[in-house]
């Protein structure tokens, strides 16, 4: 083998280039963290939502104190009165959909103050259950609920955060899964690819060894077109998935809908099945429109 002089001992040196510094592009840059001497800073924000996804964070009972040690919590109104809204945040977790006029500006501010922005939950990633209003007329809804509708300030649609600002990662689910939340936070901080799989719920269902409710009981189940992540909870209790993690990549909703009709659902049922918790996610939205 040629003895090249290029790599003999001390001559090897490291040349710093911008690319090398960008090593943790989407993650929290460790060098910056060191310079500041602090822990990565966390912000938890809420738009239109039920707080369930923040609740999942608070439900990490075994991990919460360790997380609080690893992170500096700058903004988390539901848990702490100490609020530093200005950030800047290394990691922002955003719950809820954009559905009121002032949200438009608030989300821009959060984006500008955050290094990594993660949307959490069906509301933030697809508009949530409240996006059902997108399929109707806002005025009708307002009148149906409120006797003095003139005071209601709401946008015509409830939309995903990603329709307004760049989102670095999203966690699906209504609510999100604890495992995925911990994995994501860990992965971002360690600079690894979060193991959050965009695959069908069926794969999870089968790994757990649940009996398929469609095949064995003839129940409609959105599992084949829904993104895995929850742990196949609905099939585990003998019911079909209702899609709260939203569509998986390349969801073949048309073939799914065919099957649902075959199983005895009416056109209206099929439309409503797709038009549910994540009904405003593109694939589901388009499928429900086919059954108007």
């Amino acid at each position, binding site marked *: 083998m040629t003895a*090249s002089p290029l790599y003999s001992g001390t001559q090897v040196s490291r040349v710093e280039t911008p690319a090398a510094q960008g090593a943790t592009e989407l993650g929290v840059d460790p060098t910056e963290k060191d310079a500041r001497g602090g822990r990565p800073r966390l912000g938890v924000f809420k738009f239109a939502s039920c707080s369930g996804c923040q609740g999942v964070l608070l439900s990490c009972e075994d991990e919460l104190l360790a997380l609080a040690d690893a992170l500096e919590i700058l903004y988390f109104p539901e848990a702490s009165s100490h609020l530093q809204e200005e950030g800047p945040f290394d990691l922002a977790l955003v719950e809820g959909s954009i559905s009121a006029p002032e949200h438009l500006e608030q989300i821009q501010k959060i984006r500008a103050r955050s290094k990594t922005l993660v949307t959490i939950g069906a509301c933030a990633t697809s508009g949530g259950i409240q996006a059902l209003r997108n399929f109707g007329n806002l005025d009708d809804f307002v009148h149906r609920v409120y006797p003095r509708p003139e005071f209601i300030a709401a946008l015509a649609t409830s939309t995903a955060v990603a329709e307004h600002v760049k989102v670095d990662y999203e966690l699906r689910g209504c609510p999100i899964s604890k495992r995925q939340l911990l994995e994501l936070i860990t992965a971002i901080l*360690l*600079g690894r690819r979060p193991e959050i799989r*965009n695959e069908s719920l069926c794969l999870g269902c*089968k790994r757990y060894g649940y009996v398929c409710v469609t095949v064995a009981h003839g129940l409609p189940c959105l599992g084949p077109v829904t993104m895995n992540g929850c742990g196949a909870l609905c099939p585990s209790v003998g019911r079909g998935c209702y899609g709260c993690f939203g569509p998986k990549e390349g969801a073949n909703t048309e073939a799914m809908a065919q099957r649902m009709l075959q199983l005895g659902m009416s056109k209206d049922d099929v439309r409503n099945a797709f038009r549910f918790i994540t009904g405003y996610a593109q694939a589901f939205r388009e499928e429900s429109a086919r059954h108007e």
Partner: protein
Amino acid sequence: MTAPESSAAPLYRLEEAGLALLLEGLRRDGYRLVGPVVRDGAIRLQRIEGISDLPRGFVDEQAPGTYRLRSSGNGRLFACRPGPQSWKRHLFPPREPVVQLKRHGDSLEWRRPVVEDPPMAFIGVLPCDLAAIRIQDRVWMEGPFQETRYVARRRNTFIVAVNCLEPGQLCFCASMGTGPKAGQGFDVCLTELDGAFFLEVGSERGEAAVASLPLREASEEERRRLQESLKQARLRMGRTLETRGLGGTLFGNIEHPRWEEVAKRCLTCGNCTHVCPTCFCLNVRETGTLADGRQDRERFWDSCFSLDHSMIHGGYFRHTPKQRYRQWLTHKLGAWPSQFGTVGCTGCGRCIAWCPVGIDITEEATAIRKTSRGHVRMPQPRSAPVRAGDPLVPTPAQVKGVRQETPDTTTLWVEPTGPFHWKPGQFNMLSIPGVGDVPISISGQEGSGILHTIRAVGKVTRALTSLQPGALLGIRGPFGTSWPLRAVRGRIVTVVAGGIGLAPLRGAIRVMAAHPRHYPWVRLIYGARTPADLLYPEELELWRQLLHMEVEVTVDRATPDWTGNVGVVTKLLRAGRKVRPDGVYLVCGPEIMMMVVLEELRAAGVPEEHIYLSLERNMKCGAGFCGRCQKGPFFLCKDGPVFRYDRISFVFRHAGL
């Protein structure tokens, strides 16, 4: 695999009480009994205590996309056909640890956790499923590497098989040669007939287990009844599949319109792969969170229907449902014989029943056969030498030096723990605790240290390229085939490299550069995106000065100070009339580049057997277990990454394989 039915193996009659004794005996011997149980409206394979847990009086009705249990109207224990689960979930669990990391001060130690579960006794393994276990044995135990946890479980598993007298609507084991009579591999085999069990012994372990049972030799009449029932069963298969030459037909019809048609119905849900008793694709993930501070690794079932299966940085080889369905069917029925010397389907019918939309593998394969447009010859299985050690356990290595090659590419000079033997073209799996594990070619050696040239494209490669001298990482390897340095001696060798593709070739070039007597004329044609992206510029210069070497470099985009060639490598090949039909070509680069180079070589009349390529696929193990690096009947990790082109041209031509 079926044993001849007329074999005069001793056959005994055992009453139900005797069966209970058999199970009790196995339990006493320390086995955990696993058998069919009715739960949630289906048969599941789970822990049982004794025969009272078995599905007495149940039988299933199956159709595409439908499964129902109903009363059988008789007291038979084993009337049910395959259900949604197969035995693989016990031998190859859906999720299981791979390695655990221990830190001792500054050093790292990866350990493979040992299997602690007690040995299992499988009660009621149907013939098709027995065949499936044998097929998985080939994957995990009979390749170049052994999957140690599988081996540990499998060796200790006691198998009570049950012959099948009532095949179901979706069964086609007779076509696949796996049933209805159990072939090899059982310890004890039962046939449930006329309220009793007829028992055969298949192993010494089985012999010992039945030694004290109240057995009576079967009468001639009973023996005849049994033969007759099995014969009838063979004729009552709900489905058939013609397997003759099927692999060649499937791979001869990669562009058949039927794939598009089935893709419209397919949900890419992957159920078929997860119910299949032989599918083995898996994925690996780093476990551990900030909260628990662990940095372990586990593997879990994956499926070729998941997009991630075919992912490499920036893209997917099998993006469309058509490509994914085709991968599944061609692998199962077509590629498997070349990979493992056996077909991958046992005829159990699970994928038909448990496909939510009832897609039928026999129907699809038959449709292709009936309208076949071509046929190819499939390669024979390659028997690779058995290699020692556990390929999944990294050994620690230390970074001795680091060299920034280009803005995004860095060479690590790494000192492995012990002596390290490799050949140019081979690769290692490099691990960063908590971050991941990726295949990286060995790009050379300096002293006892080996070189890896790594382009930062994603998380693991970024972490690798950020390592500083002194840092620790894990190495597994070397894996894979090497460049044919012996075979090309005395020939005109042309090396064509694109981008990072020079790294896997450098080891080979260094050898050829150092031995002009063996390699009288070596030409390197190398293309990079920009002048700044050129790897090893000083070394290129060194080579250029050698009398027996020619080095030509080109870039896609020039900078003002660049005076050399601009354009793709094929332009260089063509311009200098470099393509000599009598030469040998070693090619590595992006797949699209290799495609155009091949076209150029083909046009110039270079025989396919004089071309060698190094390919790239998603890879999680390097040892032939994860199934992700398949290209048709080949595994990149053990059949490749370096291939002689004539062997793979029939698959390389097609995108999406």
